């Protein structure tokens, strides 16, 4: 979209009117700014917690491979077919078959001292298939997918992967995620309605002015834009304050507690995440203010000369 210079000038004038509108209504603004700050602050706290938990367990639960132990009687062609099928999965980097002998070598290399292993007969070592995941698929859900795939095969007796106990933490992770999602939804609704009502209050204050503008031929965008600008400003101010507050809160917690304990747990979301949240909130305030002005104009402006 290419705006003409004149259009940009008009827009600047309307934005300026929005600033004036914002400044002239501090009493109404402060109530709603404080409300929005509170909501955003609570949101930020839980968001950062959830984000940190996600990162923390994400690293722990990160598993690279899974093994499927093969039954003694399995014929080689079935094993080959399984390997082929596993290799074709999008999450799989490599699927490899280890005979009992390989298995012995494998263990020798990775876990135990050679001397100890030499005491055991080769037949004691099971043959297995080991599936290694591509680096960007190293998550529980893909491991689970492959586990399912392995168990479908009748030549696999059991499977094993990394630290199965970590799965318990996954439920905390998922729980927090759902919680934050619900919180985000509620937050959006409450901020939307706070903005809607604030704009409505302002509109009633400016009812006469809007009527006069409408009488002398102001377009809807002339009337609406300043209110939208004012609500985005309100949102921005609230967002900045809430962000600074949460930053200070977590800084203090880190500084006085966690660092002393040597725990690196709290992690601030990246600047992109912060900006995304801001844009979503700005979008909500734009929509809320447009809806507010439209419904006001339709309800209250049909009759200038009654």
């Amino acid at each position: 979209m290419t705006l003409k210079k004149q259009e940009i000038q008009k827009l600047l004038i309307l934005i300026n009117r929005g600033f004036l509108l914002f400044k002239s209504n501090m009493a109404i603004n402060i109530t709603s700014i404080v409300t929005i700050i509170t909501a955003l602050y609570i949101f930020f706290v839980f968001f950062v917690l959830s984000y940190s938990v996600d990162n923390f367990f994400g690293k722990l639960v990160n598993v690279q491979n899974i093994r499927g132990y093969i039954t003694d009687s399995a014929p080689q062609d079935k094993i080959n077919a399984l390997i082929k099928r596993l290799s074709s999965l999008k999450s799989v980097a490599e699927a490899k078959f280890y005979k009992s002998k390989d298995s012995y070598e494998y263990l020798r290399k990775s876990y135990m001292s050679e001397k100890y292993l030499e005491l055991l007969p080769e037949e004691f070592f099971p043959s297995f298939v080991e599936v290694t995941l591509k680096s960007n698929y190293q998550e529980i859900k893909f491991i689970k997918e492959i586990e399912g795939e392995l168990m479908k095969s009748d030549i696999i007796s059991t499977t094993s992967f990394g630290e199965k106990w970590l799965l318990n933490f996954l439920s905390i992770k998922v729980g927090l995620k759902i919680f934050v999602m619900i919180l985000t939804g509620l937050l959006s609704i409450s901020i939307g309605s706070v903005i809607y009502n604030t704009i409505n209050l302002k509109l009633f204050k400016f009812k006469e002015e809007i009527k006069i503008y409408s009488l002398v031929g102001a377009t809807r965008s002339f009337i609406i834009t300043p209110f939208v600008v004012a609500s985005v400003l309100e949102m921005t101010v609230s967002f900045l304050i809430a962000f600074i507050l949460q930053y200070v809160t977590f800084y203090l917690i880190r500084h006085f507690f966690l660092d002393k304990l040597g725990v690196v747990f709290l992690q601030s979301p990246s600047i992109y995440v912060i900006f995304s949240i801001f844009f979503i909130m700005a979008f909500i305030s734009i929509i809320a203010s447009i809806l507010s002005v439209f419904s006001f104009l339709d309800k209250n402006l049909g009759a200038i000369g009654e």
Partner: protein
Amino acid sequence: MIKFFNVTVNFYGEKRALDNVSFEVKKGEFVYITGESGAGKSTLLRLIYADLLPTKGVVLVSNKDVSHISKHSIPYLRRNIGVVFQDYKLLEDKTVYENVKMALDIFYLKKKSVENRILPLLRRLGIYSRRETLVRKLSGGEKQRVAIARALINEPSIILADEPTGNLDKERAEDIIELLHDTVEMGATVMIATHDKYLIDKHRGRIIELKQGQLVNDSEKARNTETTHLN
């Protein structure tokens, strides 16, 4: 300039605020809409600046059908119509200048050209010295001059006045009618709704008389009845 074809307005289905009204007003005419309170004068004027759409019939303004006008087009219609009311519809806490300026705000003009348009008009209307005064401190006559200034600032081709003298004493009222009449000389079409017979006698013009929503009389000459002053 303005044409009404069988225009009817029903407010709650039953009662007719306007009943099958037809007339035509030509460019440069000076027209009184008269009739008792409740006859439908305000309703008739509101149809012209699209503050209301007719239930039936067609209203043409400058050859445009405003009986089916879209929301988007209303502002452009109104830029060509200046409207004055009995209760002035001014912002009391703003100055005279600021009130008149509102009608220019929508054109995004430069400060200097806004000034160049407003100040001569305020001078012409005799309120130049009051330009920085808050409207609430003005007399009724002065307020109505401010409202007229706001209506005239964009040099509209149509000027509508709904009981413009209703709150004024005799002399002020005459002055206001005089000012409105002056605009006819400048090419405007003027329609004044009033039930003030005294004023109608004072200034000649076409008279459209309404009674319970019906057009009962449409005559060119000033009426010669008793000069009672209803107000």
